């Protein structure tokens, strides 16, 4: 029997009210005893970057096809204010998280990362509506089951990002049992604005994402699904567990049905629909000297194969070498629209080692990480040094190099080396 979507939506909203009515343990706050308050916080990031560009790379030639710079060393200076507000009272809440990037008076942008209202009728239930960030999955650098997540930057996985316009209902139940210790269920409704040129969307195209979580035999387990009429349907599973007191293992597996895959065939953009599996297996290890090692193997079934990447690389070269002035911007547009991201191919290894305060260097935390493309053997290697000399202030020195032949994913980047200096002040 197939239920219409409106019925599922109404059922979800009604269930929140029913669960509220059934739960005995409502929040113990009354209007008088709960302190009402609005809290502001945030941080200002000031970032200076130096780039050593590969002037012979096709990506560089396409990026600067109109007016190429005279030297290979480029710089960028920007400020990024993050401003957050939170108001909570009586089981009700409002959260606002904003971000802006300022390069110059003529080049700046504002992002609304999150803006949502929440209502907690009981300790077991939570209803939220607005724009909010979801972070599904157990992986550190990659999340094959992150069906509703913002696109993650594996070079900076903890960076705040923009959320999803949605409404969700969550139910949590803790259980006194040796096997199953807790259970939760989250349902997310994601409306669309898919009628071109308008702010309207078709009701039937409302997407639904579901997540059930279990703490079972000291193992975190999630079952996840994404249902959509006109987007790929996705199903997934993840887990995390401490196998020793200093080793954690985690994994994710997702099946993506009818996912759109872009490739270049005979120098033309070609898209197809494929069913694919993506998965990740990883660990976090802490040694006696407080060194943390994070290692992850990531496979994405819809990524480009070696041959497909070669054709894409050739497509960029042809675009950069074309004498037709229309071809370069078209090639660049195709690249930015359909081949954006740090991991275009199928198999990657991520490895990060960090050591707080080595050699008694107070408040310093150096870390080294690599993202290694296992198909074409290119990689990026990055060294980061964080220094927090006083409370609420952090300085970050960050340098990255891209290694590989020019026909490979990382070797073909327009940037050969990148060096950044950040100053972060929190309030």
């Amino acid at each position, binding site marked *: 029997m197939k239920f219409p979507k409106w019925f599922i939506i109404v059922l979800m909203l009604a269930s929140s009210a029913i669960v509220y009515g059934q739960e005995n*343990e409502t*929040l113990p*706050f009354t209007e008088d*005893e*709960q*302190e009402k308050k609005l809290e502001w*916080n945030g*941080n200002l990031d000031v970032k200076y970057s130096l780039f050593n560009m590969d002037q012979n790379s096709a990506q560089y030639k396409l990026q600067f096809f109109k007016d190429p710079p005279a030297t290979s060393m480029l710089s960028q200076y920007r400020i990024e204010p993050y401003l957050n507000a939170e108001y*909570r009272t009586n*089981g009700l*809440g409002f959260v606002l998280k904003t971000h802006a990037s300022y390069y110059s008076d003529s080049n700046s942008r504002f992002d609304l990362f999150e803006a949502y209202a929440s209502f*907690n009728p009981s*300790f077991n239930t*939570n209803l939220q509506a607005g724009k909010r*960030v*979801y*972070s*599904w999955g*157990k992986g*550190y650098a990659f999340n094959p089951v992150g069906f509703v997540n913002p696109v993650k930057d594996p070079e900076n*996985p*903890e*960076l*705040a990002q923009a959320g999803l316009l949605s409404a969700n209902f*969550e139910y*949590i*139940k*803790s*259980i*006194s049992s040796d096997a199953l*210790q*807790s259970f*939760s269920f989250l349902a997310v409704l994601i409306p669309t604005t898919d009628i071109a040129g308008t702010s309207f969307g078709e009701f039937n195209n409302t997407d639904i994402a579901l997540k059930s*979580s279990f*703490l079972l035999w*000291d193992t*975190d387990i999630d079952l996840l699904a994404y249902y959509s009429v006109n987007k790929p349907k996705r199903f997934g599973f993840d887990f*995390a*567990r*401490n196998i020793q*007191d*200093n*080793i*954690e293992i*985690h994994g994710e597996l997702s099946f993506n049905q009818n996912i759109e895959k872009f490739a270049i065939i005979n120098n033309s953009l070609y898209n197809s629909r494929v069913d694919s599996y993506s998965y990740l297996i990883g660990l*976090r290890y*802490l040694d006696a000297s*407080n060194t*943390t090692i994070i290692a992850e193997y990531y496979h994405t079934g819809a990524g480009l194969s070696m041959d497909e990447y070669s054709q894409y690389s050739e497509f960029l070269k042809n675009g950069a070498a074309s004498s037709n002035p229309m071809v370069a911007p078209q090639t660049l547009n195709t690249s930015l629209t359909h081949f954006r991201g740090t991991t275009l191919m199928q198999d990657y290894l991520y490895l990060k080692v960090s050591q*707080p*305060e080595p050699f008694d260097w*107070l408040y310093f935390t150096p870390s080294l990480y690599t993202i290694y493309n296992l198909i074409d053997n290119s990689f990026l290697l990055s060294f980061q040094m964080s220094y*927090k000399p006083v*409370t*609420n*202030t*952090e300085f970050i020195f960050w340098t990255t190099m891209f290694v590989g032949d020019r026909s490979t994913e990382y070797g073909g980047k327009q940037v050969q080396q990148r060096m950044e200096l950040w100053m*972060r002040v*929190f*309030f």
Partner: protein
Amino acid sequence: MRTLSMLILTILFALNVTAQDANKLLKEVDDNLMPESYESIRKLINEEADGSKKEFTFYTVKKGKDKIAMLYISPASEKGRSTLRLGENMWLYIPSANRPIRITSLQSVVGGVFNNADIMQLEYSTEYDATYTKGTDTENILDLKAKNKTVAYDKLKMWITKDKKILRKVEAYSASGMLIKTLEFKDDKNFGGGITRPSLIETYSPLYKGYRSLMIYQTIKKRQFPDEVFTQNYMGRLGDLKK
């Protein structure tokens, strides 16, 4: 032969009674330190060898023997982070990442001489078996042995006042017998609700010469919570509990 058997049985019985007494005293120490379920606000100060300091303020909630959660109230750079411990399972929630990640009980979340096991301490009697050792005129001394290998310190030596059974000092040792750190419990304070206990815990370590960490309890209050508060899903909402 019969006499020898009787003697051995008598000794074993006496040792068993002594161990039971020691564990009973340990439970009383736990009861005097904290109610079984409570909320508290405390400040952690890490003092470095050069005299510089870093301060953190936490809101902590605990229920029963194995559930404890902690929310960073300050400084601003850490605000909103929270940690959850359920038995030997531990998670860290980072607001910018917006999800809990599993960590080990050995992973330090604040730096300094305190580690997670000190900051998110469950009850001593849950994690250790106690036996008496030679005490002083005013204090009993207990030797504690970890019940399993997942506990941060293999052995503890504990000084307890004879009159009020209040904890005064703990020395933490590795399995090899090396002294890892010393915790001193000072400045008894009446927190209300029948709770009188040391409000200051000072810790130092031969492994971190010149470093010192202080934990200062500002409030401790008995409070009951539903189990759902101690779930990963609730980590981002812990601030809702703070009145």
